[in-house]
């Protein structure tokens, strides 16, 4: 397994701490269980949208080779690593420095070359970075200025590039499920993880995208199936979790 430069500059005491955090991030039944459970469904959506937009054959071993992809709010790398395995040239960005150290350490263990950066979308855009795909999953409900964030995402895309976002709808059901259910009753997420008032409806999402010069091309609900204990995509039910894709206009 190849050592990656960067990880070696961290102080050894910090490494032990990050190793513990990495184990936590990547434990499918630990603290980040909700994300792990939702991940296959999110990955199915992302992979299908990228393959469709860029005409890639998903049965190839590395179908996304040659595509430059940015994962905003990459956390421990739950999306960045799969995208790198599918051949994409991945940059993972997170505003939390701890997450970046964790993600670097895990990618190194997995033998994956991923460029993780402790930075924000706006700074990357200002530095003139350009990508074929920008992912912002479970991010927009946490940003202070959604229109400005969406504009930064547009700036990060090459013309014709693909943006994929996911978030939680602002409905009575999403209050019951995401706040009361997930935070108060099931304790899947710490209390206060989400502020219901910041949730974005699918139409508001489409409005934000259009306003930034992105054309919405698809949206799907993500629904938890309690019998199979897994998430699946739904064309009709966008009342709680959903994901949306948009393309940057060529001009």
């Amino acid at each position, binding site marked *: 397994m190849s050592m990656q430069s960067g990880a070696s500059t961290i102080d050894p005491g910090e490494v032990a701490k990050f190793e513990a955090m990495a184990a936590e991030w990547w434990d499918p039944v630990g603290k980040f269980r909700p994300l792990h459970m939702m991940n296959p469904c999110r990955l199915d959506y992302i992979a299908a949208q990228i393959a469709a937009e860029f005409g890639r054959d*998903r049965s190839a071993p590395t179908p996304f080779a040659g595509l430059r992809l940015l994962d905003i709010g990459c956390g421990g790398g739950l999306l960045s690593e799969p*995208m790198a*395995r*599918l051949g994409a040239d991945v940059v993972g960005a997170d505003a939390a420095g701890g997450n970046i150290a964790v993600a670097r350490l895990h990618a190194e263990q997995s033998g994956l070359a991923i460029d993780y950066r402790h930075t924000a979308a706006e700074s990357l855009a200002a530095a003139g970075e350009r990508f074929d795909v920008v992912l912002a999953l479970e991010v927009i409900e946490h940003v202070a200025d959604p229109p400005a964030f969406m504009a930064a995402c547009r700036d990060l895309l090459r013309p014709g590039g693909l943006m994929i976002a996911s978030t939680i709808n602002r409905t009575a059901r999403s209050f019951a499920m995401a706040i009361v259910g997930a935070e108060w009753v099931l304790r899947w997420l710490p209390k206060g993880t989400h502020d219901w008032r910041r949730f974005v409806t699918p139409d508001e999402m489409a409005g934000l995208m259009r306003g930034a010069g992105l054309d919405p091309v698809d949206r799907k609900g993500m629904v938890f199936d309690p019998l199979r204990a897994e998430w699946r995509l739904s064309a009709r039910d966008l009342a709680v979790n959903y994901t949306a894709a948009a393309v940057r206009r060529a001009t």
Partner: protein
Amino acid sequence: MDIRADVLIVGGGLNGPALALALAQAGFTVALVDRLAHETRLDPGFDGRAYALALASRRLFEALGLWPVLAPESQPILDIHVTDGRPGEGAAPWFLHFDHAEIEEGPMGHMLEDRHLRRVLLATMQAEPGIAQIAPAEVVVQEVGPAGVTLTLGDGRRLEGRVLVGADGRGSGTAARAGIARTGWDYGQTGLVCAVEHELPHGGCAHQFFMPAGPLAILPLKGNRSSIVWTERSALAAEVSAMSDADYLATLRPRFGDFLGAIRLAGARSSYPLSLSIAHSFVAPRLALLGDAAHGVHPIAGQGLNLGLRDVAALAEVLLEARRRGEDIGAADVLARYQRWRRWDAVSLALGMDAVNRLFSNDNPLLRAVRDLGLGAVNALPGVRRRFIREAAGLSGDVPRLMQGRGP
């Protein structure tokens, strides 16, 4: 590292090669470690062993491109007769009769001799560039790391993969090295296996007689031949095994009956003790068990290979789906999907077969009356009977894509 592959498989019986083919055809690289040399596996000596391939298993072989070669060697099963009997007494008045015309999918299964299946699997594997076969070889060390698994062989060679599959039978060393405990028991019964030639045609009909000592299955092979699986208490089985061919046949004849005319042995005889052995978990970090390594069942209704092939199809589908998403194919949550899918099915079937055997391997007159009524009741209700047929054909439950006649 001497060999690197996506998937390492330990065990070169039938399930291991079937999985290797399914994975290699889907684009994975595979290394298969077999304890036995090819020449041993290919020994043409016919030991009479044959499998009742369920329809779902045939579909898996179709998906793997093996069926065109296997079909000419296979005998379709058109009818199944299940009877309760005692030697010399003939069949009880109540019996079960399953006819393939009752389900729309065609024959409920095919009889295929072990020697043909083995030869075709090995030859196809050899022609597959994505598979590295390592045989004969013994695994001595098995180490699991954060991103992969490493095997060290007896000759010092080292193999590295993302995930390890134990297809090494009920005494699975792979499971033992991973610390997976097993539950099981001996039945005190032994399966006597042979093939017979008979005077009259079998008409594609399979027979299962439930005798006090254990079930006797007469399964149609190509031509006027049938495969016999004859279960006896182990002490008696040892005596029967030691007999000359003539005495052996003389002992078999009254149990067999004369409905196929005169019989004589075709090929060698073999025997194996029956036991149930279930692994406490089908998965461990970067490890999945399948076939007998996960669940060694009683061979009633020939479900052992069919169950194993269902594991093969399910595991191949789970791994392929994970790769298409870019997931780590050896990650705990990926392997957990395989276990969730297969464990209930395999364990419930194993215990169900165990219960059936306990109910039928008994000469208690009350139990005999109960089971005769039960068989009669199943036979009298077409809906129930169709469910049994579909179950036996492997068409019930969550069927893997490779067994639905579709690509993975």
